[in-house]
């Protein structure tokens, strides 16, 4: 992740990836970094070195699965949410919303 938000976003990357995937049917690595950056207006920069290990971990945990597809003659690995991943995403989304709500209350945002 980008230096400026490194500490604050650390530990939430798994949730961010699950959340991004829940909004799309399938996504590939570069698309995730680009989409996260667009959504946060450049604030969140997911580095490749953080993204791929987490993607592989999530796949290993059965949260997501991948498929290689040919796009314009190129091999692209798309990631999809599994049922287990969808449940986890819903749970984490609720947790994050409650966490953000609590922070808002404390910081009077």
């Amino acid at each position, binding site marked *: 992740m980008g230096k400026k938000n490194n500490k604050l976003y650390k530990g939430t990357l798994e949730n961010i990836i699950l959340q991004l995937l829940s909004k799309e049917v399938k996504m590939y690595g570069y698309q995730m970094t680009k989409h996260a950056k667009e959504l946060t207006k450049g604030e969140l920069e997911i580095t*490749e070195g953080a993204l791929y290990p987490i993607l592989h971990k999530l796949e290993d945990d059965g949260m997501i699965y991948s498929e290689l597809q040919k796009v314009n003659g190129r091999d692209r690995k798309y990631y999809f949410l599994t049922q287990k991943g969808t449940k986890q995403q819903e749970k984490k989304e609720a947790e994050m919303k409650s966490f953000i709500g609590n922070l808002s209350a404390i910081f009077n945002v």
Partner: protein
Amino acid sequence: MLSQSEQNKIRNYLFSKNLPFDLLLEVEDHFQEQIENLMQKEMSFEEAFPEVKLLWKKDLKETYPWHVLNRTENGKITLLERRTKMEIEVKLLQIAFLVALITAICFMFLGKHLPFSQFKTSFIIVYSLPLFTAVIMYFIKMFSYSKLYKKPYNTFKTSIYEGFGKDIDLLLYCSCLYFLHLWLGTDFVKSFYSVSDVVSSYTILKGIALFIFFGWGIFLNLRFYKSLQSFRKIKTQIKAL
């Protein structure tokens, strides 16, 4: 859209970084997208490629893993590969040692209920099983690879789940298991069978060693299984090399 020669330049660069092929395919796509993005901003490929390499510099920095004694170019791994391996292998280790623990508890229970001959047979079968299944999976993978790709098996790493030195750790496991067998001796099963009796600290030490080796064997099996699964996904891409 990148030309074939430009795509080849990217692939050759990533191959030089010794990345496992399944991870390489993803990184390659990421590289291509980033370069194309820069080229849309009026940059040439020759300008964009070094820019992207710079973005990946830290992640593609190569180091030697602590267990690699033979410090050749092939032994190096990138930071990206190391991080990815750490993420996936910790969980595999946890599963492996949980299975080893459950098995040990089961045998302690069986020791009180089974006659010794049956206990000995089942003990030997269960504790030898990881070796046989790992060797079988190793050969399945090697033959599938040879069918698809004519170059030697150790030309490149196919999967992030692959052990160090193209699964040479299996050989290490086999050798260690042989010496462990010599050390444990034939009477060991008997001492395990009568575990409810007073056992010496030496026997406990042997039991711990067997537990670790069994866990290691399960870990190797899990990794081979995952490696085979990953290999099946990239068969077409390996064939096209």
